[in-house]
């Protein structure tokens, strides 16, 4: 599974992209966040406030309850702030 991080999540985790192999019981976006948060202090900081973390699975916006599976591209990022005049 490919996990991508953007903006301050990328800075806190320390990388913009990592390949991970979560155990089979990790089947949702929220479970994946719990699992990723334990990988390092940086990951824990990135996921410390879930209310301001958004996710996409295979480049489609996803809710915490949405499914993830091996081979997916899962991205985590803050709410978008681009292009604002």
């Amino acid at each position, binding site marked *: 599974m490919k996990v*991508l991080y*953007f*903006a*301050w999540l990328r800075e806190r985790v320390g990388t913009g992209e990592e390949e991970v192999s979560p155990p089979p019981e990790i089947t949702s976006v929220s479970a994946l966040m719990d699992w990723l948060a334990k990988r390092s202090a940086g990951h824990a900081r990135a996921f410390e406030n879930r209310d301001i973390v958004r996710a*996409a699975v295979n*480049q489609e*916006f996803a*809710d915490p309850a949405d499914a993830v599976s091996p081979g997916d591209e899962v*991205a985590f*990022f*803050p*709410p*978008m*702030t*681009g*292009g*604002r*005049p």
Partner: protein
Amino acid sequence: MIRVQADDFDVGAEIAALTAGNTHIGGVVTFTGLVRDFAGNTAVGTMTLEHYPGMTERMLGEIEAEARRRWPLDASLIVHRHGPLAPGDRIVLVITASAHRQAAFEAAEFLVDWLKTKAPFWKRESGPRGDRWVDARAADDDAAARWQAPRQE
């Protein structure tokens, strides 16, 4: 058509390219977003726009397709820049062309409202007090909500 690029764009050249050969078009509306030198009360030096390559193009394409379902457009273009930008720089371009002006005006406004909330861009501003990631603003969600969601998330 949508493009995501680091380079600047030429508004006149884009209009000419988009409308060339289509004499059915009666009106062209363009919106150009510029980088402002103030964010709230904070002076901004430069800023950097990060995006999600792949998803950005996909989301801009979906937003454009939604506009073309809603309005009879003959042509449309979204150009969004990323990377380092300074106050005064052009950052986003929306062009809509239609036989009649109303569709072009409405579609352009729809596109601008939606791309601000749906496109995966994140802004990091550099000011006198250092760098900071810009928080999302509820006002943008409100502006987009006027149009109702083009699809459920």
